[in-house]
Protein backbone atom coordinates (compact mmCIF):
# COMPACT_ATOMS: atom_id res chain seq x y z
CA UNK A 1 0.00 0.00 0.00
CA UNK A 2 1.39 3.42 -1.02
CA UNK A 3 4.64 1.62 -1.78
CA UNK A 4 5.24 1.01 1.94
CA UNK A 5 6.95 -2.23 2.78
CA UNK A 6 6.02 -3.78 6.14
CA UNK A 7 7.24 -7.29 5.41
CA UNK A 8 9.93 -6.90 8.12
CA UNK A 9 7.14 -6.82 10.70
CA UNK A 10 6.69 -10.56 10.20
CA UNK A 11 10.14 -11.14 11.67
CA UNK A 12 9.71 -12.33 15.29
CA UNK A 13 13.00 -10.63 16.26
CA UNK A 14 11.64 -7.22 15.27
CA UNK A 15 8.32 -7.96 16.91
CA UNK A 16 10.19 -8.79 20.09
CA UNK A 17 12.15 -5.52 19.89
CA UNK A 18 9.02 -3.46 19.45
CA UNK A 19 7.32 -5.22 22.32
CA UNK A 20 10.30 -4.76 24.63
CA UNK A 21 10.51 -1.13 23.54
CA UNK A 22 6.87 -0.48 24.35
CA UNK A 23 7.15 -2.20 27.73
CA UNK A 24 10.25 -0.18 28.65
CA UNK A 25 8.63 3.06 27.50
CA UNK A 26 5.62 2.28 29.67
CA UNK A 27 7.83 1.41 32.63
CA UNK A 28 9.85 4.57 32.28
CA UNK A 29 6.73 6.73 31.90
CA UNK A 30 4.91 5.12 34.82
CA UNK A 31 7.90 5.36 37.12
CA UNK A 32 8.79 8.94 36.34
CA UNK A 33 5.15 10.09 36.35
CA UNK A 34 4.52 8.66 39.82
CA UNK A 35 7.74 10.12 41.12
CA UNK A 36 6.96 13.49 39.52
CA UNK A 37 3.54 13.62 41.18
CA UNK A 38 5.09 12.73 44.53
CA UNK A 39 7.80 15.38 44.13
CA UNK A 40 5.11 17.88 43.10
CA UNK A 41 3.07 17.18 46.22
CA UNK A 42 6.02 17.31 48.59
CA UNK A 43 7.32 20.48 46.94
CA UNK A 44 3.94 22.20 47.10
CA UNK A 45 3.53 21.12 50.73
CA UNK A 46 7.03 22.43 51.44
CA UNK A 47 6.08 25.79 49.99
CA UNK A 48 3.08 26.06 52.30
CA UNK A 49 5.40 25.93 55.31
CA UNK A 50 6.66 29.41 54.40
CA UNK A 51 10.14 28.76 55.74
CA UNK A 52 12.66 30.94 53.94
CA UNK A 53 15.38 28.44 53.11
CA UNK A 54 12.92 25.70 52.12
CA UNK A 55 11.21 28.15 49.77
CA UNK A 56 14.55 29.14 48.29
CA UNK A 57 15.64 25.52 47.73
CA UNK A 58 12.37 24.52 46.08
CA UNK A 59 12.41 27.67 43.97
CA UNK A 60 15.96 26.90 42.78
CA UNK A 61 15.02 23.30 42.00
CA UNK A 62 12.01 24.39 39.95
CA UNK A 63 13.98 27.02 38.03
CA UNK A 64 16.82 24.66 37.15
CA UNK A 65 14.71 21.74 35.99
CA UNK A 66 11.94 23.70 34.33
CA UNK A 67 14.22 26.02 32.39
CA UNK A 68 16.71 23.58 30.91
CA UNK A 69 16.13 21.03 28.12
CA UNK A 70 15.19 17.61 29.48
CA UNK A 71 17.56 15.99 26.99
CA UNK A 72 20.45 17.93 28.50
CA UNK A 73 19.31 16.93 31.99
CA UNK A 74 19.26 13.32 30.94
CA UNK A 75 22.72 13.43 29.37
CA UNK A 76 23.96 15.23 32.44
CA UNK A 77 22.49 12.60 34.77
CA UNK A 78 23.89 9.81 32.61
CA UNK A 79 27.43 11.08 32.36
CA UNK A 80 27.75 12.34 35.93
CA UNK A 81 25.84 9.69 37.87
CA UNK A 82 27.24 6.74 35.94
CA UNK A 83 30.81 7.95 35.87
CA UNK A 84 31.20 9.64 39.25
CA UNK A 85 32.53 6.52 40.87
CA UNK A 86 29.07 5.15 41.56
CA UNK A 87 29.99 1.60 40.61
CA UNK A 88 29.22 -1.75 42.11
CA UNK A 89 30.63 -5.20 41.52
CA UNK A 90 28.13 -7.46 39.84
CA UNK A 91 28.02 -10.56 42.08
CA UNK A 92 27.35 -12.97 39.21
CA UNK A 93 30.03 -11.83 36.78
CA UNK A 94 32.48 -10.19 39.15
CA UNK A 95 32.69 -7.21 36.81
CA UNK A 96 32.55 -3.65 37.98
CA UNK A 97 29.42 -2.03 36.55
CA UNK A 98 27.84 1.40 37.00
CA UNK A 99 25.50 1.45 40.00
CA UNK A 100 22.91 3.33 38.00
CA UNK A 101 21.88 1.88 34.67
CA UNK A 102 20.99 4.14 31.75
CA UNK A 103 17.37 3.34 32.57
CA UNK A 104 17.78 4.48 36.18
CA UNK A 105 19.47 7.70 35.07
CA UNK A 106 16.66 8.41 32.62
CA UNK A 107 14.02 7.66 35.25
CA UNK A 108 15.69 9.92 37.79
CA UNK A 109 16.15 12.81 35.41
CA UNK A 110 12.60 12.56 34.02
CA UNK A 111 11.21 12.39 37.56
CA UNK A 112 13.02 15.58 38.51
CA UNK A 113 11.96 17.35 35.32
CA UNK A 114 8.33 16.31 35.73
CA UNK A 115 8.50 17.01 39.46
CA UNK A 116 9.56 20.60 38.85
CA UNK A 117 6.62 21.12 36.50
CA UNK A 118 4.26 19.40 38.96
CA UNK A 119 5.39 21.63 41.85
CA UNK A 120 4.48 24.65 39.73
CA UNK A 121 1.07 23.19 38.85
CA UNK A 122 0.20 22.14 42.41
CA UNK A 123 1.46 25.41 43.82
CA UNK A 124 -0.93 27.39 41.65
CA UNK A 125 -3.77 25.15 42.81
CA UNK A 126 -2.96 25.79 46.46
CA UNK A 127 -2.40 29.49 45.98
CA UNK A 128 -5.81 30.00 44.42
CA UNK A 129 -7.40 28.41 47.49
CA UNK A 130 -9.68 31.02 49.11
CA UNK A 131 -8.20 32.07 52.43
CA UNK A 132 -11.56 31.48 54.07
CA UNK A 133 -11.32 27.76 53.30
CA UNK A 134 -7.98 27.56 55.08
CA UNK A 135 -9.35 29.61 57.99
CA UNK A 136 -12.45 27.42 58.16
CA UNK A 137 -10.27 24.32 58.33
CA UNK A 138 -8.11 25.84 61.06
CA UNK A 139 -11.12 26.96 63.06
CA UNK A 140 -12.43 23.38 62.93
CA UNK A 141 -9.23 22.23 64.60
CA UNK A 142 -7.38 20.81 61.60
CA UNK A 143 -3.62 20.87 62.10
CA UNK A 144 -1.24 21.62 59.26
CA UNK A 145 -0.87 18.06 57.93
CA UNK A 146 -4.50 17.08 58.24
CA UNK A 147 -5.48 20.33 56.59
CA UNK A 148 -3.16 19.70 53.66
CA UNK A 149 -4.12 16.08 53.04
CA UNK A 150 -7.82 16.28 53.79
CA UNK A 151 -8.73 19.69 52.43
CA UNK A 152 -6.12 21.65 50.50
CA UNK A 153 -4.62 18.79 48.49
CA UNK A 154 -7.93 17.31 47.28
CA UNK A 155 -9.25 20.72 46.24
CA UNK A 156 -5.94 21.71 44.64
CA UNK A 157 -5.71 18.34 42.88
CA UNK A 158 -9.03 18.88 41.20
CA UNK A 159 -8.07 22.37 40.15
CA UNK A 160 -4.66 21.23 38.86
CA UNK A 161 -5.76 18.06 37.10
CA UNK A 162 -5.95 19.59 33.59
CA UNK A 163 -2.46 21.03 34.06
CA UNK A 164 -1.23 17.71 35.36
CA UNK A 165 -2.61 15.95 32.28
CA UNK A 166 -0.46 18.23 30.13
CA UNK A 167 2.60 17.55 32.23
CA UNK A 168 2.13 13.78 32.12
CA UNK A 169 1.58 13.65 28.36
CA UNK A 170 4.68 15.77 27.90
CA UNK A 171 6.64 13.52 30.20
CA UNK A 172 5.43 10.47 28.28
CA UNK A 173 6.66 11.91 24.99
CA UNK A 174 9.93 13.02 26.58
CA UNK A 175 10.72 9.39 27.51
CA UNK A 176 11.68 8.95 23.83
CA UNK A 177 14.76 11.10 24.47
CA UNK A 178 16.09 8.36 26.74
CA UNK A 179 17.07 6.54 23.53
CA UNK A 180 19.99 8.97 23.29
CA UNK A 181 21.53 7.50 26.44
CA UNK A 182 20.89 3.95 25.16
CA UNK A 183 17.80 3.15 27.22
CA UNK A 184 16.16 0.36 25.21
CA UNK A 185 12.72 1.94 24.93
CA UNK A 186 10.49 2.25 21.88
CA UNK A 187 12.43 5.01 20.11
CA UNK A 188 15.72 3.18 20.65
CA UNK A 189 14.45 -0.04 19.07
CA UNK A 190 12.88 1.95 16.25
CA UNK A 191 16.37 3.17 15.40
CA UNK A 192 17.74 -0.35 15.62
CA UNK A 193 15.09 -1.64 13.28
CA UNK A 194 15.51 0.96 10.54
CA UNK A 195 19.28 0.67 10.76
CA UNK A 196 18.76 -3.02 10.07
CA UNK A 197 16.04 -2.79 7.45
CA UNK A 198 16.52 0.69 5.93
CA UNK A 199 12.71 1.05 6.13
CA UNK A 200 12.96 4.39 7.92
CA UNK A 201 9.61 5.80 6.81
CA UNK A 202 7.69 2.61 7.57
CA UNK A 203 9.24 2.28 11.02
CA UNK A 204 8.58 5.93 11.85
CA UNK A 205 4.95 5.70 10.78
CA UNK A 206 4.45 2.63 12.94
CA UNK A 207 6.18 4.16 15.95
CA UNK A 208 4.17 7.34 15.51
CA UNK A 209 0.95 5.33 15.60
CA UNK A 210 2.08 3.48 18.69
CA UNK A 211 2.76 6.78 20.47
CA UNK A 212 -0.60 8.18 19.38
CA UNK A 213 -2.37 5.15 20.82
CA UNK A 214 -0.41 5.13 24.07
CA UNK A 215 -0.72 8.86 24.73
CA UNK A 216 -4.42 8.76 23.81
CA UNK A 217 -4.97 6.06 26.41
CA UNK A 218 -3.25 8.28 28.95
CA UNK A 219 -5.27 11.39 28.12
CA UNK A 220 -8.47 9.36 28.06
CA UNK A 221 -7.71 7.96 31.49
CA UNK A 222 -6.94 11.44 32.80
CA UNK A 223 -10.18 12.81 31.35
CA UNK A 224 -12.07 10.02 33.11
CA UNK A 225 -10.28 10.85 36.33
CA UNK A 226 -11.14 14.52 35.90
CA UNK A 227 -14.80 13.67 35.39
CA UNK A 228 -14.71 11.34 38.38
CA UNK A 229 -13.10 13.89 40.66
CA UNK A 230 -15.05 16.91 39.43
CA UNK A 231 -17.24 18.67 41.93
CA UNK A 232 -19.77 21.39 41.26
CA UNK A 233 -18.45 24.89 41.03
CA UNK A 234 -14.84 23.96 40.25
CA UNK A 235 -13.23 22.97 36.99
CA UNK A 236 -15.37 20.57 34.96
CA UNK A 237 -18.00 20.22 37.67
CA UNK A 238 -21.51 21.44 37.05
Amino acid sequence: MFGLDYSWLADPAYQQWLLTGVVNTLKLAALSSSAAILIGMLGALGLTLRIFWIDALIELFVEVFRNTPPLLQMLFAYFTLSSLGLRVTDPSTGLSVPLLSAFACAAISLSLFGGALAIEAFRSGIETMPRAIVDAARSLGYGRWARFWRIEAPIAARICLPGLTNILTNLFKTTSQASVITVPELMYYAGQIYNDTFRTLEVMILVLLIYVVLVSILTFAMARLEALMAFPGYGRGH
Partner: protein
Amino acid sequence: MNRVDALIELDNVRKSFGDVPVLKGISMFVQKGEAVCIIGPSGSGKSTVLRCINGLIPVDDGFVRVGAHRVHEMRSEKQMRALRHQVAMVFQQYNLFPHRTALENIMMAPIQVLGHDRAEVEERARKLLKKVRLSEKADSYPGQLSGGQQQRVAIARALAMQPDVILFDEVTAALDPETVKDVLFAIRELVEEGLTCILVTHEMKFAREVSQRVCFTDRGLIVESAPPAELFDNPQDPRTREFLGQVL
Protein backbone atom coordinates in the same frame (compact mmCIF):
# COMPACT_ATOMS: atom_id res chain seq x y z
CA MET B 1 -19.97 42.74 85.19
CA ASN B 2 -17.90 40.04 86.84
CA ARG B 3 -14.98 39.20 84.60
CA VAL B 4 -13.96 36.04 86.42
CA ASP B 5 -17.36 34.47 85.77
CA ALA B 6 -17.26 35.43 82.12
CA LEU B 7 -16.92 32.65 79.57
CA ILE B 8 -14.85 34.89 77.35
CA GLU B 9 -12.51 37.54 78.60
CA LEU B 10 -10.38 39.94 76.58
CA ASP B 11 -8.21 42.42 78.38
CA ASN B 12 -6.30 45.20 76.67
CA VAL B 13 -5.71 43.16 73.52
CA ARG B 14 -3.35 44.72 71.02
CA LYS B 15 -2.52 43.59 67.52
CA SER B 16 -0.61 45.19 64.66
CA PHE B 17 -0.14 43.98 61.11
CA GLY B 18 3.33 45.18 60.27
CA ASP B 19 3.47 48.76 61.43
CA VAL B 20 -0.29 49.21 61.33
CA PRO B 21 -1.99 48.94 64.72
CA VAL B 22 -5.36 47.26 64.19
CA LEU B 23 -6.43 46.51 67.77
CA LYS B 24 -5.36 49.18 70.23
CA GLY B 25 -6.47 47.76 73.55
CA ILE B 26 -9.69 45.78 73.28
CA SER B 27 -11.35 44.67 76.49
CA MET B 28 -14.62 42.77 76.61
CA PHE B 29 -16.35 40.07 78.58
CA VAL B 30 -19.02 37.68 77.44
CA GLN B 31 -21.08 35.65 79.88
CA LYS B 32 -22.23 32.13 79.17
CA GLY B 33 -25.48 32.22 77.20
CA GLU B 34 -25.03 35.82 76.19
CA ALA B 35 -25.36 37.10 72.62
CA VAL B 36 -23.08 40.06 71.94
CA CYS B 37 -23.08 41.97 68.67
CA ILE B 38 -20.07 43.88 67.39
CA ILE B 39 -20.87 46.70 65.00
CA GLY B 40 -18.63 49.34 63.50
CA PRO B 41 -17.18 50.69 60.30
CA SER B 42 -15.34 48.45 57.88
CA GLY B 43 -11.68 48.10 58.83
CA SER B 44 -12.26 48.94 62.47
CA GLY B 45 -10.95 45.53 63.59
CA LYS B 46 -14.14 43.53 64.14
CA SER B 47 -12.96 40.42 62.29
CA THR B 48 -9.57 40.67 63.94
CA VAL B 49 -11.20 40.57 67.39
CA LEU B 50 -13.01 37.34 66.50
CA ARG B 51 -9.83 35.83 65.05
CA CYS B 52 -7.95 36.58 68.25
CA ILE B 53 -10.64 34.89 70.32
CA ASN B 54 -10.28 31.54 68.58
CA GLY B 55 -6.55 31.86 68.08
CA LEU B 56 -6.54 32.14 64.28
CA ILE B 57 -4.13 35.02 64.75
CA PRO B 58 -1.82 35.51 67.75
CA VAL B 59 -2.20 38.69 69.76
CA ASP B 60 0.78 40.99 70.30
CA ASP B 61 -0.15 41.98 73.81
CA GLY B 62 -2.95 41.54 76.30
CA PHE B 63 -5.00 38.70 77.70
CA VAL B 64 -7.50 36.41 75.96
CA ARG B 65 -9.33 33.67 77.84
CA VAL B 66 -12.07 31.33 76.68
CA GLY B 67 -13.31 29.07 79.46
CA ALA B 68 -10.16 27.53 80.89
CA HIS B 69 -8.06 28.27 77.80
CA ARG B 70 -5.56 31.10 78.00
CA VAL B 71 -5.49 31.81 74.29
CA HIS B 72 -2.79 34.49 74.37
CA GLU B 73 -0.32 31.89 75.71
CA MET B 74 -0.99 29.29 73.02
CA ARG B 75 1.59 28.97 70.29
CA SER B 76 1.00 25.74 68.35
CA GLU B 77 -2.00 24.40 66.48
CA LYS B 78 -1.83 21.36 68.70
CA GLN B 79 -2.41 23.43 71.83
CA MET B 80 -5.29 25.11 70.03
CA ARG B 81 -7.19 21.93 69.32
CA ALA B 82 -9.21 21.87 72.55
CA LEU B 83 -9.95 25.57 72.09
CA ARG B 84 -11.18 25.02 68.54
CA HIS B 85 -13.49 22.32 69.88
CA GLN B 86 -14.99 24.88 72.26
CA VAL B 87 -15.14 27.86 69.89
CA ALA B 88 -16.65 27.52 66.42
CA MET B 89 -16.62 30.20 63.76
CA VAL B 90 -18.68 31.01 60.69
CA PHE B 91 -17.18 33.32 58.07
CA GLN B 92 -18.56 35.77 55.56
CA GLN B 93 -18.19 33.37 52.62
CA TYR B 94 -16.37 30.34 51.18
CA ASN B 95 -16.93 28.53 54.45
CA LEU B 96 -17.66 25.12 53.05
CA PHE B 97 -15.19 22.68 51.58
CA PRO B 98 -16.25 22.54 47.91
CA HIS B 99 -15.16 18.93 47.38
CA ARG B 100 -17.49 17.53 50.01
CA THR B 101 -21.28 17.36 50.18
CA ALA B 102 -23.24 19.34 52.75
CA LEU B 103 -23.54 16.30 55.01
CA GLU B 104 -19.86 15.43 54.65
CA ASN B 105 -18.87 19.02 55.42
CA ILE B 106 -20.72 18.71 58.73
CA MET B 107 -19.31 15.27 59.54
CA MET B 108 -15.66 15.76 58.60
CA ALA B 109 -14.20 17.57 61.58
CA PRO B 110 -16.05 15.69 64.34
CA ILE B 111 -14.73 12.44 62.85
CA GLN B 112 -11.30 13.53 61.60
CA VAL B 113 -10.39 16.02 64.32
CA LEU B 114 -12.38 14.99 67.39
CA GLY B 115 -12.31 11.29 66.61
CA HIS B 116 -16.01 10.79 67.26
CA ASP B 117 -17.83 7.69 66.10
CA ARG B 118 -18.99 7.95 62.49
CA ALA B 119 -22.51 6.59 62.98
CA GLU B 120 -23.11 8.88 65.91
CA VAL B 121 -21.75 11.88 63.98
CA GLU B 122 -23.96 11.12 60.98
CA GLU B 123 -27.03 11.07 63.20
CA ARG B 124 -25.96 14.38 64.74
CA ALA B 125 -25.27 15.89 61.31
CA ARG B 126 -28.68 14.90 59.93
CA LYS B 127 -30.40 16.40 62.96
CA LEU B 128 -28.48 19.64 62.47
CA LEU B 129 -29.33 19.76 58.77
CA LYS B 130 -32.96 19.38 59.76
CA LYS B 131 -32.56 22.16 62.29
CA VAL B 132 -31.33 24.56 59.59
CA ARG B 133 -34.10 23.26 57.27
CA LEU B 134 -31.82 21.70 54.68
CA SER B 135 -32.44 17.97 55.15
CA GLU B 136 -33.12 17.55 51.45
CA LYS B 137 -29.74 19.11 50.55
CA ALA B 138 -27.63 16.56 52.46
CA ASP B 139 -26.02 15.21 49.30
CA SER B 140 -25.63 18.52 47.46
CA TYR B 141 -22.21 20.01 46.93
CA PRO B 142 -21.61 23.58 48.10
CA GLY B 143 -21.47 24.65 44.44
CA GLN B 144 -25.08 23.50 44.08
CA LEU B 145 -26.36 25.53 47.04
CA SER B 146 -27.33 29.18 47.23
CA GLY B 147 -25.23 31.48 49.40
CA GLY B 148 -27.84 31.41 52.14
CA GLN B 149 -28.05 27.63 52.08
CA GLN B 150 -24.26 27.40 52.24
CA GLN B 151 -24.23 29.63 55.30
CA ARG B 152 -26.84 27.52 57.03
CA VAL B 153 -24.79 24.39 56.34
CA ALA B 154 -21.79 26.26 57.76
CA ILE B 155 -23.79 26.99 60.91
CA ALA B 156 -24.76 23.33 61.17
CA ARG B 157 -21.10 22.39 60.70
CA ALA B 158 -20.09 24.73 63.49
CA LEU B 159 -22.76 23.23 65.77
CA ALA B 160 -21.58 19.70 64.99
CA MET B 161 -18.39 20.50 66.91
CA GLN B 162 -20.63 20.93 69.98
CA PRO B 163 -19.01 24.25 70.82
CA ASP B 164 -19.69 26.47 73.82
CA VAL B 165 -19.40 29.60 71.69
CA ILE B 166 -19.96 30.45 68.04
CA LEU B 167 -18.35 33.47 66.41
CA PHE B 168 -20.24 34.85 63.41
CA ASP B 169 -18.30 37.18 61.14
CA GLU B 170 -20.73 39.10 58.91
CA VAL B 171 -22.26 35.85 57.77
CA THR B 172 -25.04 37.57 55.81
CA ALA B 173 -22.95 40.33 54.24
CA ALA B 174 -22.32 38.49 50.96
CA LEU B 175 -25.85 37.13 50.53
CA ASP B 176 -28.78 38.03 48.34
CA PRO B 177 -31.37 39.89 50.40
CA GLU B 178 -33.95 37.10 50.02
CA THR B 179 -31.71 34.50 51.64
CA VAL B 180 -30.52 36.67 54.51
CA LYS B 181 -33.79 36.07 56.35
CA ASP B 182 -33.33 32.28 56.61
CA VAL B 183 -29.80 32.62 57.92
CA LEU B 184 -30.78 35.17 60.55
CA PHE B 185 -33.67 32.92 61.52
CA ALA B 186 -31.26 30.04 62.16
CA ILE B 187 -28.96 32.23 64.24
CA ARG B 188 -31.84 33.67 66.23
CA GLU B 189 -32.91 30.15 67.18
CA LEU B 190 -29.45 29.39 68.55
CA VAL B 191 -29.40 32.54 70.62
CA GLU B 192 -32.83 31.74 72.02
CA GLU B 193 -31.62 28.27 72.96
CA GLY B 194 -28.96 29.94 75.06
CA LEU B 195 -25.83 29.30 72.97
CA THR B 196 -23.17 31.92 73.61
CA CYS B 197 -22.69 33.95 70.43
CA ILE B 198 -20.53 36.83 69.30
CA LEU B 199 -21.88 38.32 66.11
CA VAL B 200 -20.19 40.83 63.87
CA THR B 201 -23.04 42.18 61.82
CA HIS B 202 -24.34 45.00 59.68
CA GLU B 203 -27.94 43.99 60.34
CA MET B 204 -28.81 46.64 62.91
CA LYS B 205 -32.41 45.54 63.30
CA PHE B 206 -31.27 41.98 63.95
CA ALA B 207 -28.62 43.16 66.42
CA ARG B 208 -31.22 45.10 68.31
CA GLU B 209 -33.62 42.17 68.45
CA VAL B 210 -31.35 39.28 69.39
CA SER B 211 -28.43 40.61 71.39
CA GLN B 212 -28.14 41.39 75.04
CA ARG B 213 -25.31 43.78 74.38
CA VAL B 214 -23.86 45.67 71.43
CA CYS B 215 -20.26 46.83 71.15
CA PHE B 216 -19.36 49.60 68.75
CA THR B 217 -15.79 49.48 67.44
CA ASP B 218 -13.92 52.25 65.72
CA ARG B 219 -10.25 52.25 64.68
CA GLY B 220 -9.25 49.35 66.87
CA LEU B 221 -11.09 50.37 70.03
CA ILE B 222 -14.42 49.51 71.58
CA VAL B 223 -15.84 53.00 71.79
CA GLU B 224 -19.11 52.13 73.41
CA SER B 225 -20.77 49.00 74.78
CA ALA B 226 -24.36 48.86 76.02
CA PRO B 227 -27.65 46.97 75.80
CA PRO B 228 -29.06 47.44 72.29
CA ALA B 229 -31.95 49.70 73.28
CA GLU B 230 -29.52 52.05 74.98
CA LEU B 231 -26.84 52.00 72.31
CA PHE B 232 -29.19 52.46 69.38
CA ASP B 233 -31.61 54.95 70.95
CA ASN B 234 -29.26 56.92 73.11
CA PRO B 235 -25.67 56.61 71.89
CA GLN B 236 -23.20 58.42 74.15
CA ASP B 237 -20.14 58.79 71.95
CA PRO B 238 -20.18 61.12 68.94
CA ARG B 239 -18.50 58.44 66.77
CA THR B 240 -21.29 56.00 67.59
CA ARG B 241 -23.86 58.65 66.71
CA GLU B 242 -22.15 59.39 63.42
CA PHE B 243 -21.92 55.70 62.48
CA LEU B 244 -25.54 54.99 63.39
CA GLY B 245 -26.57 58.08 61.48
CA GLN B 246 -24.99 56.60 58.37
CA VAL B 247 -26.34 53.05 58.62
CA LEU B 248 -29.81 53.48 60.11
